[in-house]
């Protein structure tokens, strides 16, 4: 799980690292650091706890959530490949390579947004809408934190 989440973060960080802005690195609050650590250990448990579901809702939610995570894993893998490409090209990055990378990063982001939307729709009708909204809020919050954490270690393109 930790490897997968780092891959996701790394992908997002390709477009999240900044030069002067990166000087704010390493400044998550203690609470955020703790949450990131918990996500890396067991994101499923963090999400389930935060969802605050009844037993009946858990039975409906978990199979869809597991399917969602499996789908997201493919995006994470692609993100990992993109990061490797960025790292290996970093010192000699050409404008053409940067453009290609940018295009791929955005494609990957669109896929990630669409996957969340697809599974939110899948949950709709099976769970109360307030719970589906909560799921999207949780995912967005966790992804934002992971993206930020990953951005700390990836330098801005020169």
């Amino acid at each position: 799980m930790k490897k997968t989440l780092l891959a996701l973060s790394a992908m997002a960080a390709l477009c999240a690292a900044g030069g002067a802005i990166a000087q704010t690195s390493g400044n998550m609050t203690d609470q955020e650091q703790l949450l990131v650590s918990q996500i890396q250990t067991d994101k499923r448990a963090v999400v389930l706890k935060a969802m605050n579901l009844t037993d009946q809702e858990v039975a409906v939610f978990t199979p869809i959530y597991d399917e969602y995570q499996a789908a997201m894993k493919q995006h994470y893998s692609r993100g990992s490949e993109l990061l490797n490409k960025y790292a290996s090209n970093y010192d000699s990055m050409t404008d053409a390579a940067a453009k290609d990378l940018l295009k791929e990063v955005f494609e990957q982001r669109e896929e990630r947004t669409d996957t969340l939307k697809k599974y939110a729709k899948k949950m709709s009708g099976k769970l109360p809408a307030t719970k589906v909204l909560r799921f999207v809020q949780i995912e967005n919050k966790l992804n934002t934190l992971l993206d930020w954490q990953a951005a700390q270690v990836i330098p801005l393109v020169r």
Partner: protein
Amino acid sequence: MKLVTLALAFVVTAFPLASVAQDTSGTAADEQVLLKQIQTNKRGVFADNLKLTEAESKAFWPVYDQYEADLKKLNDRFLQLINDYAAKYDTLTDEQAAAMLKERLGIDRKRTDLRVKYCERIGKVLPGRKALRFAQLESRIDNLAMRNLYTVIPLAR
């Protein structure tokens, strides 16, 4: 749920030029400095970090300004959504939640589309590496704003 608190929190994070009181207790100290810089002059943050030549500046800034104008329309929709959420938070029905979810996911997709569109346009007027650098900076700024926002918006019940 305090409507005004939520609305202000979003205004200061997503609308950088707004000059209002803020609650940034969820972010570290130097991030608050950065937030202030962005709130005061987001354009200046890009100017400092992109290191454009004169010719690049001439081509880039009109595209950037158009991007910010289009982004503001989506941010206005997002602000409306947050205000709506705050106003209904204590009595939120499933029907209202479903409508808000649809709006939120729609805005997210449009934001992504807008970034793709403008990064392509910027890629045509700037060298690829500077276009990528722009995207990295913009994404970082957005991430900071959203993190700040999430510290003050509670999850749906």
